[in-house]
């Protein structure tokens, strides 16, 4: 199963929300749409689901043009950021409602719901209302509803953004096991690059409604195609070096080594992070951050150096990658 977006654009009044977006999500592939808020990632998802119409372009699911196909017939399994559980219905009723309106018999509904409840380990909560569940449980109900849909495409809109960091980490393997292991394409919207890297096969970075770059997490990290991607991917953020030419040079904090001699810097601040530490330096090329072993201790003057082949070069006007 595949999902293809060909030259998809969406305009609301005079604003282009999405411009000429091309995307192909293959069999069982998970693509993360990553970008700051307002970049068009949620809009893209809504267009795929059929909740919004594209102004231009074609949308294909399994090779079939679905631009004019109703949302239900596109058969997408969507998990909303808010989970969108029906507050007046119990967990079991939430799950069976879709089956009911699509015309499944009562026995079939019960069978499907009870099997999904046991897969999701929600059996004991089946009679509870959403408000009586924890955040993680609500999220599992939302996932269960998407799974029950037996969809052609999974669409996950910031599925974990309402959960605390620890729960997020716990749910990642579950999400992988349940949804990412299937043969359906998955589109995963997030603004969290860690989550994108952890979950997705490929990441599409969006900025102002256009696709900045698409590639594996490694490609994006090692060869960001623009300054925007370089700054968006990788934490702590990439160092931009002061330069007098039309070339913007950047180096990642983890590619800088502390040496006995090299560029002389002054220590400004330290952040101790456990396995390593982040130090803020004032160098002749501006302020830079360096990641190094947490056992190291420093005096006020520090000498650093880096391999020039690790530098990322960008055009100062177009911000596109040069090297």
């Amino acid at each position, binding site marked *: 199963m595949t999902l293809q977006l060909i030259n998809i654009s969406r305009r609301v009044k005079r604003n282009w929300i999405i411009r000429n977006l091309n995307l192909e999500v293959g069999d069982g592939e998970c693509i993360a749409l990553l970008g700051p808020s307002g970049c068009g990632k949620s809009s893209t998802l809504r267009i795929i*689901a059929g909740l919004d119409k594209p102004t231009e372009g074609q949308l294909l699911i399994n090779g079939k043009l679905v631009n004019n196909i109703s949302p239900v017939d596109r058969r997408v399994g969507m998990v909303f950021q808010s989970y969108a559980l029906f507050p007046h219905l119990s967990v079991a009723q939430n799950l069976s409602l879709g089956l009911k*309106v699509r015309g499944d018999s009562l026995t079939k509904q019960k069978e499907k719901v009870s099997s999904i409840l046991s897969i999701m380990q929600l059996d004991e909560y089946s009679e509870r209302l959403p408000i009586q569940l924890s955040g993680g449980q609500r999220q599992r109900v939302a996932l269960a509803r998407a799974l029950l849909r037996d969809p052609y495409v999974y669409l996950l809109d910031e599925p974990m953004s309402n959960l605390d960091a620890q729960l997020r980490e716990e749910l990642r393997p579950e999400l992988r096991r349940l949804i990412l292991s299937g043969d359906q394409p998955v589109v995963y919207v997030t603004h969290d690059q860690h989550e994108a890297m952890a979950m997705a096969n490929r990441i599409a970075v969006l900025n102002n409604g256009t696709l900045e770059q698409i590639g594996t997490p490694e490609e994006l990290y090692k060869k960001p195609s623009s300054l925007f991607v370089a700054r968006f991917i990788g934490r702590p953020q990439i160092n931009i070096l002061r330069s007098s030419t039309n070339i913007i040079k950047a180096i990642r904090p983890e590619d800088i080594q502390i040496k006995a001699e090299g560029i002389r810097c002054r220590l400004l601040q330290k952040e101790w992070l456990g396995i390593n530490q982040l130090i803020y330096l004032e160098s002749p090329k501006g302020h830079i951050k360096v990641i190094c072993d947490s056992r190291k201790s420093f005096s006020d003057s520090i000498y650093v150096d880096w391999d020039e082949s690790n530098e990322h070069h960008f055009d100062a006007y177009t911000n596109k990658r040069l090297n």
Partner: protein
Amino acid sequence: MIYLLLITPALTLVLIVFGFPIVRYSWLSLHSYSVLTGLDVIPNTAANWVRLLNDDRFWQDAIQTIRFSTLSVSIELVLAIAIALILHQKIKRRGLVRALSLLPWALPTTIMALGWRWIFNTPYGPLENILNTIGVGTFNFLGDPRYAWLTTVIADVWKTTPFIALLLLAGLQSIPKDLYEAFKLEGGNSNQSFLRITLPLLEPYIILSLLFRIAQAFGVFDLIQVMTGGGPAGTTESLGLYAYLNAMRFLDFGYSATVMLASFILLVFYCLMLWILLSISKRIYELII
């Protein structure tokens, strides 16, 4: 224990404005207190209540009050749901339309009751004129004991529907859009989403406006007083009007208190029946949907 302290001011206020009159009326209803007793308060055991039970005018007014409240609140509710749904749509100049739709409610009751009295006037009113012109014939709207109460229902519906619509609109706005979208993806059409999402989630707002309106309609006074004065032949007279007449015209405060208290008991009983009816219909609704 601190919560007791915190609710004390509100509780005191409720007791003063609500508890005190009830206690006072209960006490008064067990006494003769009128111009005939020289405004002396004389205990009369249950004479007022015996009189009430045998008072045809009271029972006629009770039935009138109940049918007036039932009919006008039912029509108002249905219309208000429709209006709220329209006002909830993305229509042009939505703010202006919403403000305009509230206008009937903002008018003082006496003013709009005068207006309706003129509209229904025979033979000079505009409605009569229109019906005559198109050849439907002549009606004596305010003078016919069979239909006069319906004109007060129309006026009440006209005035109060916007208020319920506003309450329900607030309810509609509290329903997250996500729910409709999720339901759409699951295959629900717009009828189903109204029946399965909108209506159930609007339920608390519907109950609230029902309670508001029924309590208000039971005590209707100004609208009736201005439009018909209780006539013709007392067919539009409400319990509120009757209690007022007893106190202010017949100067029989003991009996007036009895009528007031009886209408309060009737209201409680009515709400109880309504509650039972609503619970049953909710069960049935969930079964057939």
